């Protein structure tokens, strides 16, 4: 079974440009999460989808970030326009809606560098 897949693995863009990150969760996982780690800082929660609905987007830093999950399958995270402080590693995770213990599976992350 495929794990959580993130694309691209690396992205280097100029300040002011737009970048779209994609996450393909494990099939059947209704929970989908986005996280970000800025250099030297902790991994921070961005938002949580249950199927196609945003359950919690309290971690989104500002309105330059837009996340979507059309049809409740893959998700995209768009940054427009990108700023230097957006550089970091963006992780996506998915999990089943719980019955019993539930583990979240993480992707390898997308390393975003804004120059």
């Amino acid at each position: 079974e495929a794990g959580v897949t993130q694309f691209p693995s690396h992205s280097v863009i100029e300040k002011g440009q737009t970048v779209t990150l994609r996450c393909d969760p494990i099939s059947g996982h209704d929970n989908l999460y986005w996280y970000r780690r800025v250099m030297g800082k902790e991994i921070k929660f961005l938002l949580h989808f249950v199927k196609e609905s945003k359950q919690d987007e309290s971690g989104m830093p500002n309105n330059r970030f837009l996340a979507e999950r059309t049809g409740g399958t893959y998700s995209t995270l768009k940054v427009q326009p990108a700023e230097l402080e957006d550089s970091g590693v963006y992780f996506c995770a998915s999990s089943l809606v719980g019955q019993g213990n539930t583990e979240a599976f993480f992707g390898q992350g997308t390393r975003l560098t804004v120059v």
Partner: protein
Amino acid sequence: LAKTTQPISMDSYEGQEVNITCSHNNIATNDYITWYQQFPSQGPRFIIQGYKTKVTNEVASLFIPADRKSSTLSLPRVSLSDTAVYYCLVGDVLAGNMLTFGGGTRLMVKP
């Protein structure tokens, strides 16, 4: 959300047992305790999860006292490949609540 506190770093030697303790004084009734491992340039990887008492799987054990205000991850006979950052997370995973990462514990296993 329950805040967690872990040691920033630990050193060990190959073959030793390593115990990493996490404090979570304001853990809620519905919260589970989950530990993740992360290697450089990879996403976090689930190790073990528990609610109370003791949980054991093929890679680790998790000890949770009755008051649940702390937990201890036990790694038996570590090897060099266990060098990683270990995160303790507390949350209502059955409700799908997001996981809050703390600083983690950087474990260095030496030969």
